């Protein structure tokens, strides 16, 4: 077993692992921790959007009339987000707040995420679970959307034998598809079951006929254009929610947040005391899933 320090080192982004280096680290995790994070062979795209460059490629805010009072929640969140983008990356702390009182169980977020990220059949980054309790007529039902918790202490990253997954400076846990070998350790390690294995399915495997036109298009996860193909990443990799980094960096909210029929999902910078999300989690009705595991999730639920 690796020590905690070694685990931390492993979770640091993009050590210059050659293929040979990877084999070495796989063989001996102890030594892997000693490899210095220098001499980057290439820019790691999962770390794109350098600090303080907001405003270059930002999508304009929706052109809606001024509110009578305060700010419209979506506009406010977009402004919060853009303010965060002005700061260096390591000063941002992206968090999500899901108000369970407002989730109407429409599952719109689940599908908005599927189309946003062009997820193949069988992979849902953000399922919504339904729980029903009680005996007639005293019954209750609640809906629990489950994105990646983007834990501050992610149990999934340290188990990765090839350092293909780590926590970015802004708190989002990312996967480098080109490094991931699909071993599945991280999938097992996640206490929230937020990671899935991409088995390489296409809709034709289930729906019949040929490829769907939208399956021939690039996904834009992590700002990289990739068309899903049977013989290249991310097929055979672990996959999970990444708070729509590629949208955030254009000044847009994650797809789940904008689609939400109940306006139950909120997104923003937890380091910014003026952000809507900071305001929301400063209430007594806040909770996190499996808090007792010490994972320090950055997805907060309001009850």
């Amino acid at each position, binding site marked *: 077993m690796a020590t905690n320090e070694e685990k931390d080192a492993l979770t640091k982004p993009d050590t210059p692992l050659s293929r040979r280096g990877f084999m070495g680290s796989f063989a001996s995790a102890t030594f892997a921790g000693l490899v210095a994070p220098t001499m980057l062979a290439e820019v790691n795209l999962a770390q794109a959007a350098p600090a303080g460059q907001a405003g270059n490629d930002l999508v304009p805010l929706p052109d*809606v*009339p001024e509110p009578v009072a305060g700010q419209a929640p979506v506009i406010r969140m977009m402004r919060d987000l853009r303010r965060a983008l002005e700061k260096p990356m390591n000063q941002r702390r992206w968090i999500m707040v899901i108000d369970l009182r407002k989730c109407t169980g429409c*599952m719109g977020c689940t599908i908005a995420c599927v189309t946003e990220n062009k997820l193949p059949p069988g992979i849902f980054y953000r399922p919504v679970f339904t729980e029903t309790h009680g005996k007639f007529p005293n019954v209750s*039902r609640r809906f629990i959307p489950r994105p990646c918790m983007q834990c501050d202490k992610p149990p999934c990253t340290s188990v990765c034998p090839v350092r293909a997954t780590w926590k970015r400076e802004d708190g989002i846990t990312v996967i480098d598809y080109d490094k991931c070998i699909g071993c599945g350790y991280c999938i097992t390690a996640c206490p929230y079951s937020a990671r899935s294995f991409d088995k390489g399915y296409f809709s034709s495997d289930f*729906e019949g006929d040929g490829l769907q036109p939208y399956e021939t*298009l690039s996904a834009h996860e992590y700002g990289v254009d990739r068309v899903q193909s049977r013989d*290249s990443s991310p097929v*055979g990799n672990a996959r999970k929610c990444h708070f729509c980094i590629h949208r955030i960096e254009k000044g847009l909210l994650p797809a789940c947040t904008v689609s939400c029929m109940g306006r139950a999902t909120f997104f923003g910078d937890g380091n910014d005391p003026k952000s809507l999300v900071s305001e929301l989690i400063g209430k007594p009705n806040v909770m996190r899933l499996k808090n007792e595991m010490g994972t320090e999730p950055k997805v907060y639920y309001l009850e």
Partner: protein
Amino acid sequence: MTDAMTEKKLSRRNFLKVGGLSAVGAAMGGAGFRAISLDEAQRLAQAPSVKYTYTADVMCPAECGLMVKVENGVASAIYGNPHVPYNAGTICSKGASGLQMVYNPNRIKYPMIRVGERGEGKFKRVSWDEAIAYIADKLTAIKKNYGPESVIMDTGDVTDKDTYWRLFLAFGTPNCTEHGAICDTPRRHGPRLLLGGKRIEPDIMRPVLLRQPDGTLKNDYSYRSKLIIYAGWNPFTATRINYESRGTVEAKLAGAKLIVIDPAFSNTAAKADQWIPIRPGTDPDLFAAVLRYILEHDNPSDPSRRYIDWSFKDKSVGWDEFETEFRSWWKKVDPINKLNYFTPEWAEQRTGIAAEKITELAHTYGITKPAALVWGMAGTGHHYNGYITSIIGMALNVITGNFDVPGGVIDTELVRSDKGGKATGKDFFKREVKRTVNGAEVVGEQEQLHMDLFGNWVAAWDDAVGDYPRRMLDGVTLQQGPFRGHTYPVKAYILRTGNSVITGSATWKWQEALTAKDKLGNYKVDLVAYIDTPFLESGLYADVVLPEASYMERMSLSDVYPSHPVIWLRDVVIEKQFESKTPFDIMIALAKALHKRGDPDIKPKDFWEKYKEEADFWTEALAVAPGKPNVGVPLPYPQYPAGYKIIGTPESLEAGRVKIDDEKKEIKGEPVTPQWLREHHGVAVWPMAYFRDPGILKTSSKKFEFQWDWTETKDNKTSRYGQYSKYNKLIEESGNVPPGIAKLGWKKYPPTFFWFETMWNSHTNPDYTQYQAKYPFQVISSRVHHSMSGTQMIDWLGHFPVEDLTMPINDEVAYDEILVGADPASRGRKRRIPANSWSIAVIQMSSADALQLGLKTGDLVELENPLGHKTRGKVNAVETIRPGVLRMPFGGGGRFSPGLGKNFYFKDVTPNANQLVDPAAISPIMGMPGYNDMLVKVTKV
């Protein structure tokens, strides 16, 4: 990303390919036919072109404003349009999954003509010319032999009906109809009688655009409601009105109390402060008990009992008559429970809700202001006597002072933007026609040939589609108006985006009507055409099948029940797929074909000379927008005279680029056009106001009318008023009482409050108590996201469990893949649906009932009604439904068209609720099928 980086990236990926392959290969097993190769993937990833198009949804009739991402000409992701306040950027799973409708493998790809018998599903592929010629030949012959009125144009969806209606109205038939007839007509009845309106919704659309004291227009996001009551209305899952999802939960957090009255624990009920599990079909009983309590206990001088805002009387006519008639029932004794009508104890016996809960509900509603009492589709519209629910509901909202106040209720029909105008072809209704009736020539208007309004359903202003099968079998004899005595058969049924066989009343009755033959062996309905994007069951009975362009491939307009005038454009997002054509294309093609065959009623100047392209049609349809009066507080346009009709773009009205016509009382800015909408985020938004009555009321007196047929004499001139008066005039003239109301013992439509019992309810109607022992269960159906007739093939949606109604409790199924087309035979591909992986329609049953019957979740049962009709499905034994009630998704099961995708393979184990509908239990005033009035027994299979 730079090109250099792309290259590097790809080379790295190539390098890793070898390592990745073994794992991937193992994972894929024997996966399907086509996948993208790496080379292809690399090619495709190069320089994608990306654009966003604003449009409007049609995945469900909520028609939300959308923003669709188009990459390389392919629609790739669907977002809500944040500029449309109706949905304010939000969309549900159904809206988001439109790609799987637009690109569905089972879309109709090309025109087809039937080669087998109707229902067999055997077709040959034909060209558009052949298909149009086939239809035009038939229509021409039918018009010559039987008259154009023998043709029914049923546009199914309300959405985008205008081109079809225009063509067939011009052709000469008044029998053009749409979905409304089988939607919820009893639910609309109260608002129509009292206000001239239709659709009551709570004031929870946010934002609303309000004029500020400083003259600016701003978005108001604040919620004012203190109480929202949904009776038989489930906006979270049926999503008919988008803003009621966020609006309801946000109003609640802002302090509103939510009460949901529903036999089943709906997703909306899951958010309620109180769920009242009412017995199906007893909403009128509950509402009547609430009204009686409020009338008996109202005390204007006691603040804790000040239920009624008596100022409503100044704005009303006929309240005294209404109240007198209502009170006349109080002394009568119910034949079943022997109690006086409308008391809490009486209502307890009927509704199954404790009397003290009923009085608490009445008191809470009376004392809490502002409040919204809203009744729904299935709970009101799908019952034989649902009219009474909507009449009392409307009366309650008016007398408690909750109509069009902030936080109260809004009749959205009265405040939405006008659209359509002359493009709809409604002027053709007034065209003069001649017919020989009983040997004499009679002159009248085209409309007076209408099979419902001048036949058996005089007050069915939304038509009586549920009664079409009977007329297809027996023909039409007009009963009213100048043509009474005129007979004609139904010879053509043109169905567009509807699925009457599954949804238009009893499935078996529609099948019987569409396959009935005359003595010569010819089908009685000589022509059945089916026009749609997906291929649903009714298509199996068609002679000609036409592929209609999907909602992303055509134009038109949307404005679904917002709180103030808002209109958004449905725009062309992608190219037409396969060989499909737009409704506009089809109108022009068919018009030209009829003209070529010498049809004197189809004139080039009304069609292709008038509309050079699709946008021209919608430009004309927009010319009337918004067409609403400048009334209310705050006044939408304080710079213009109050009461005047507003027309034109918000921009021109704001800038003062208008003409004011004092004679017509009209303020006319620059007309809204499709191009203007495109340049303004796809939407036009005009200001909201409250207290818009009486300006917006469409009653004959411009007041709230609690009387529906009365006369007044003024200046020696006697006039007749009220919404029923014109129908009663016809009846008086003809002496023919419409059979629906004759069955109730009525001679005319009643002048004010009325009461009658629903059918097939053993708890409230003495005619049916005899069935209670043998048929102990009431069956109801409800709409959920993917159980609607036309979207069940969506793979993404099919995985979701919803409301205990569609659940992943399927058995494993292996089958040969079939795709819709001229030769729907197996393509030699084996498919497998693993057990418990696909959400199928189930029968939701109380676990207490299941225990008693020895049933458990997953057991297959047969439901049989007293008429001997049956359906089968799996039991889902749960705590979320009232004992004694079985619930199924509407149109959710027994789906036998291969166009339904995976659901097709579960057709024998999923229930079709509408097999159990009594086709004779058509609601008496407006001809609506009584979908939710039926009794069954349950047998394990």
